[in-house]
């Protein structure tokens, strides 16, 4: 069985994650309940005409994916595998509004065409004329994770040597207002927000895109080994600890051998107990969080993985990611745990390239 290496990364988020550096400069926003992603210079990746036509998700996806490919020095991957929780929601809303407001008349197909869930994956393939395997996963908070599992299976079996895999989600006005109606997004009166000590329901919504080049070989640019991944559609609170320990057992690791745990804490008081359960297993371990920087969205774990692989490569944890004060001399194995509203639990195990 081949090993699966992460050899290139690209991340668009509410922070300056696009480009060199590892959170050298961050903006911690505790007052807005929706965080927009910082736009990279799209002109470097997309023609000016297309920039005007494309929704933000497509632009973020194309930019992040091209950045990851360039980072890995790859011109053409064997496959493009994308995850998106909500899909192309800006164009979906646009078309839906046109249908309803004009009573099904005078419609043009442009926004319908771009509303399809696999638009980002398709546009990436179209842009670089990649005729290989192309899948899009759309399963809430395991959309990206499903794409990564698929990639890992194909790399390990030898079916593919180089895979571009990633996740993307954009925010959209109407959906934001609907989410506020049912307290999925925090009320503005609950600010300032603190994802580690939540006092209110809902989350600070974010958006972004993260792509990763996965390969069967180690290169000079390798960030980490993508060792294992597991998902569960639903868990009760008491099942969180066994989920984690079983996963570690199957990887022949003890809790103390995890050098850092990256947690998806999103400040939703209704579901924070899942993270408390997970955290309680790792009281002696460096604990990291990131959604105070990225906001929460179905593919927010793009940011978490982006950060985790940098920790492994650079062997240091930026202060802004630390939950506790514990640090280590060496980071060899990093575990990520994420869930959203008690559903779509995932564990990802990353290892240092030389382990």
């Amino acid at each position, binding site marked *: 069985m081949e090993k699966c290496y992460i050899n290139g990364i690209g991340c668009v988020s509410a922070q300056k994650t696009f480009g060199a550096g590892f959170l050298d400069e961050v903006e911690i926003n505790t007052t807005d309940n929706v965080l927009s992603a910082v736009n990279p210079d799209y002109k470097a990746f997309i023609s000016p005409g297309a920039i005007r036509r494309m929704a933000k998700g497509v632009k973020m996806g194309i930019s992040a994916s091209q950045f990851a490919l360039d980072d890995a020095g790859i011109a053409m991957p064997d496959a493009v595998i994308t995850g998106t*929780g*909500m*899909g192309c929601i800006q164009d*979906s809303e646009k*078309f*839906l*509004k046109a*249908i*309803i407001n004009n*009573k*099904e008349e005078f*419609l*043009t*197909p442009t926004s*319908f*065409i*771009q*509303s*399809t*869930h*696999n*638009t980002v*994956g*398709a*546009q990436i*393939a*179209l842009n670089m*004329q*990649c*005729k*290989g*395997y*192309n*899948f*899009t*996963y*759309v*399963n*809430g908070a*395991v*959309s990206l994770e*499903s794409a990564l599992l698929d990639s890992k*299976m*194909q790399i*390990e*079996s030898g079916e593919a040597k180089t895979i571009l895999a990633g996740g993307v989600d954009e925010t959209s006005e*109407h*959906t934001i*207002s*609907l*989410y506020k*109606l*049912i307290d*999925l997004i925090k009320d503005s009166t609950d600010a300032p927000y603190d994802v580690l000590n939540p006092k209110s329901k809902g989350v600070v919504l974010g958006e972004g895109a993260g792509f990763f080049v996965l390969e069967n070989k180690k290169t000079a640019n390798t960030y980490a080994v993508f060792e294992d991944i597991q*998902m*569960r*559609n*639903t868990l009760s609170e008491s099942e969180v600890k066994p989920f984690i320990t079983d996963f570690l057992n199957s990887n022949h690791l003890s809790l103390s051998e995890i050098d850092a745990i990256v947690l998806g804490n999103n400040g939703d008081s209704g579901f924070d107990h899942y993270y408390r359960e997970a955290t309680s297993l790792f009281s002696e371990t460096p604990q990291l969080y990131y959604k105070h920087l990225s906001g929460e969205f*179905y593919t927010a774990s793009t940011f978490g993985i982006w950060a985790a692989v940098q920790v492994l490569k650079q062997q240091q944890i930026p202060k802004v990611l630390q939950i506790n004060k514990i640090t280590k001399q060496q980071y060899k194995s990093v575990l990520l745990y994420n869930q959203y509203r008690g*559903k779509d639990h995932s564990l990802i195990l990353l290892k240092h390239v030389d382990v």
Partner: protein
Amino acid sequence: MGIISSIGNNVEENYSALIQGKTGITQTDYLETIHKDTLKFGEIKFSNAELEKILNLSPDHRFPRTSLLGTFAAKQAVENAGIQEVNEVPTGLISSTSVGGMDKTEKYFYEYFDNESVRKFILSHDAGETSHQIADYLGIKGFVTTISTACSSAANAIMLGARLIQSGQLERVIVGGSDALSIFTINGFNSLMILTDGVNTPFDQNRKGLNLGEAAAYLVLESDSQVKKANKNVLAYLSGFGNANDAFHQTASSENGEGATLAMQKAFVVSGLKTGDIDYINAHGTATPNNDLSEGRAIQNVFGNTVPVFSSTKPFTGHTLAAAASVEAVYSILALQNNVVFPNMNFKTPMQEFGLVPQTELLEREINHVLSNSFGFGGNCSTLIFSKS
């Protein structure tokens, strides 16, 4: 396997309609659309209320129609496979959909702001939620994911299921897709001008476009060891699969059918079969000018001058989008089980670009291997090969 489509509420009813040449394309009884009188659909003649009753859902449920249909078909598949305790071995669900809960979103888009009682459906919009609802109904605890690659989605769900079993991660996986008719899709396809005002006529020179349909269909895939251990009756084998991207246009297929050609070629490599082994092609055959030309060319690219018997079953069901490939997987397995090729109805005139003529009458013959194609927006091309057990 389990299925609900406009030609039947279970496998037997679907088979019976297929051999009797009974179409499910009708005017709509349920949709509120200005296209009511001009367009025909493959509509399932159950209201949401009737489906809720059949499934015995509690009144406060928040299933959109996609989940209702999906649950109906997936439950049937689980029962058909003789599964008593769904989590007794590592079991997953891979579902696919293009619209998810769009029927509720389009209905309550503005009403959500004024009517608190419908707000429960806000959480049911996203595609993944429909899979969660199906999994929760069936009591599946494990790996659940959703694929949305437009009209090839369910083929890709089947493909992923096979990979998960091959790699040893799952012993059993329920795979397929569900898509309900929605005003959103109808107007989308209508604005693209690829809907016929009559009935669809695949591979006909004068084809005018597709009829949209709704359906849900699921297969239960099990590993070799699970089959042996539980002494399971095997309906068919998934012997090959392939996915490729046409990388030509967001909604149109290339005229030379490159993506489709690659998908079929990959499926042959996986299966180890030769082109001459295929006894029947269940074509994608949507009856749009673009698809049938592209697919026909691709079939010729792969099979040369010895094209097997082929037909599109879309004149029966309409194009059921993300469910189409699982609906047609069920039909492919029925073809294997009953040694029969289903007719490509409504065909009259061969296309001038090539001399390909589909099978227009019911044909009884030995069928050992069926190739099924599904293609979608975004250049997504998928091929599955099913073989006799």
